[in-house]
């Protein structure tokens, strides 16, 4: 709970900094603040409980995921200074929005009441609409913002409808009360309809097939840092929230519900990977890759044991790989009209370190061992076999194989082609973020225990 307050305060602080003309200090101060909050958040691990009439629940799940979100936000904020170099006057807005976005995400994973959930997801969504459209002179960015906004608010309507039906069935927004009602009384069927509406809305936010159409367009059109935010942060937030919702509201999963999850997961894995094969725009490709990863993450809903841990691990692995990926992509595609794969030609020779990092993150996402992506997939599949959905496992394997095809397109471009133009000097911050993300990635791979046992 206090984390949420602190984050909101930090957001306001960054707004105030603009007023006091302390632009240069914004990013460092925010990062330090976030680090402090991270420390504080981790310390609340020992003070679990519900706050303010059960509006916020601090449990292991929320603490762990909040910490992950904070870490990712730190990366994103660290990248901001360099990324928004040309728009110095707006830096406080950007940083502020990102911090508020973080507040929204924290609310989403620690809610105890559906109203908090709804507000959290709206804070997140609205921030993202803004960030997507934030390059206001660029029609692509406008278009991305518009598409995201239209479809996003449509999905918000559906989520709201879902909440409404749940309320109609149980008479409460409080998770505990709802659980009590459905386990002790007869309640109308609306409840399930509401759950499904919620599920659909969240699947939209996670971008799974068939609710994925917005993702490629929006990812491509948005400024790179926003894309990074959407892909690494928003996706896993939505996934964690969905997980929490399903676990809290649907204690017993029906077969038909599972079947829907399986279908969605399979469709996402396959379609995402196949579509990514023919993409020439790196961000767009990453969107499709994200769709397939969403398929993987969604299948954690089926797991019978250790699901939260697996999800946390998968999300962390995916996020750190994504951050490293975007740190490099942002550098390479800066000042470029399109983020085509050709931009990476000869990158391996001119920048061995960054190319190596990019390669490592791609390999991680492709699921090659020692990088965390592999372990994530392994743990997930390991649990999945247990559930008996072997079809899903096989499809996951096949789609992993397909995914190698496009991840390696970038690697091929980096190492086998010659570059046509030179790139400016590498910004230090990009390099630091990329390196730290890579280290985290490898560390997660080498010591999976650290993350894997957090949630008991």
């Amino acid at each position, binding site marked *: *709970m206090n984390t*949420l307050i602190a984050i*909101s305060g930090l*957001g306001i602080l960054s*707004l105030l900094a603009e007023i006091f003309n302390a632009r240069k200090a914004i990013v460092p101060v925010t990062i330090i603040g976030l680090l402090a909050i991270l420390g504080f958040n981790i310390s609340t691990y020992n003070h679990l409980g519900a*706050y*303010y*009439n059960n*509006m*916020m629940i601090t449990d292991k799940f929320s603490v762990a995921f909040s910490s992950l979100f904070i870490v990712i936000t730190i990366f994103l904020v660290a990248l901001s200074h360099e990324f928004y170099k*040309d*728009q*110095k*006057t*707006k830096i406080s*807005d*950007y940083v*502020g*929005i990102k911090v*508020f*976005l973080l*507040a*929204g995400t924290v*609310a989403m994973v620690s809610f105890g*009441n559906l*109203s*908090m959930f709804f*507000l*959290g997801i*709206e*804070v997140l969504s*609205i*921030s993202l*609409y*803004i960030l997507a*459209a*934030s390059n*206001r*002179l660029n029609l692509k960015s406008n278009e991305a913002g518009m598409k995201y906004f239209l479809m996003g608010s449509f999905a918000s309507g559906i989520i709201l409808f879902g909440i409404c039906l749940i309320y109609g069935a149980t008479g409460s927004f409080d998770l505990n009360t709802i659980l009590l009602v459905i386990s002790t009384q007869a309640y*109308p*069927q*609306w409840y*399930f*309809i509401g759950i499904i509406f919620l599920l659909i809305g969240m699947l939209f936010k996670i971008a799974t097939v068939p609710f994925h159409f917005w993702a490629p367009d929006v990812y491509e059109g948005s400024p790179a840092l926003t894309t990074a935010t959407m892909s690494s942060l928003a996706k896993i937030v939505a996934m964690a929230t969905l997980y929490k919702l399903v676990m809290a509201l649907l204690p017993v999963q029906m077969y038909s519900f599972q079947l829907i999850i399986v279908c969605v997961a399979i469709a996402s894995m396959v379609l995402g990977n196949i579509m990514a094969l023919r993409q020439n725009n790196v961000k767009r490709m990453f969107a499709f890759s994200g769709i397939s990863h969403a398929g993987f993450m969604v299948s954690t809903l089926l797991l019978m044991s250790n699901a939260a841990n697996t999800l946390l691990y998968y999300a962390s692995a995916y996020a750190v790989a994504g951050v490293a990926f975007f740190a490099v992509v942002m550098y390479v595609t800066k000042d470029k009209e399109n983020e085509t794969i050709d931009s990476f030609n000869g990158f391996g020779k001119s920048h061995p370190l960054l190319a190596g990092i990019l390669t490592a993150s791609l390999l991680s996402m492709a699921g090659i061992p020692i990088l965390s992506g592999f372990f994530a997939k392994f743990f997930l599949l390991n649990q999945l076999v247990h559930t008996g959905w072997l079809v899903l496992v096989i499809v996951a394997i096949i789609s992993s194989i397909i995914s190698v095809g496009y991840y390696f397109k970038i690697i091929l471009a980096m190492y086998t082609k010659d570059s046509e133009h030179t790139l400016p000097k590498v910004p230090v911050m990009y390099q630091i973020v990329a390196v730290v993300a890579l280290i985290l990635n490898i560390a997660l791979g080498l010591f999976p225990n650290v993350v894997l046992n957090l949630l008991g």
Partner: protein
Amino acid sequence: MSTLLIIFYFLSAITLATAFLTIISKNPIHSAIYLVICFFSVAGHYLLFNAQFLAIVHIIVYSGAIMVLFLFTIMLMNLNKEGEPHKKIATKLAAVISFGLVCFVMLAVFIKAMPKMETYRTSGQDFQSIKVLGKVLLNEYMVPFEFASVLLLVAMMGVVLLSKKEKTIQ
């Protein structure tokens, strides 16, 4: 049929009709007007429920703020003409079919899921007066209430961000 029911049907007819008209009107201004009427009819429903405070807030927020925003934008963009190009038949057809489908599916689902409502609980207590609402909102729902301010703050920042011209460009 009780009076209430008649009023309900009347209001509902207005609501649905205006909502529908909002959508099919070619002139955005007309749409906006229809929408205002629609909002008023919804407020009528609220009054029917004896939720006066909500009805008023609804009118203030929707008809007062949101609709003004819409109209303002329409006028800003000078969109009062029928500017929309002719849509493809396929698009229309698809929209109509999916509307039919959604309507059918939703109604069917709800009809199927509808419980037998023999009696309605009447608590007899006041649950929707301003006083009660205020208590609930500022005690139980204090955190969301505050958090809504963050939401509005973000929206405000965003709108400013999107509309503010950069100094460097000038």
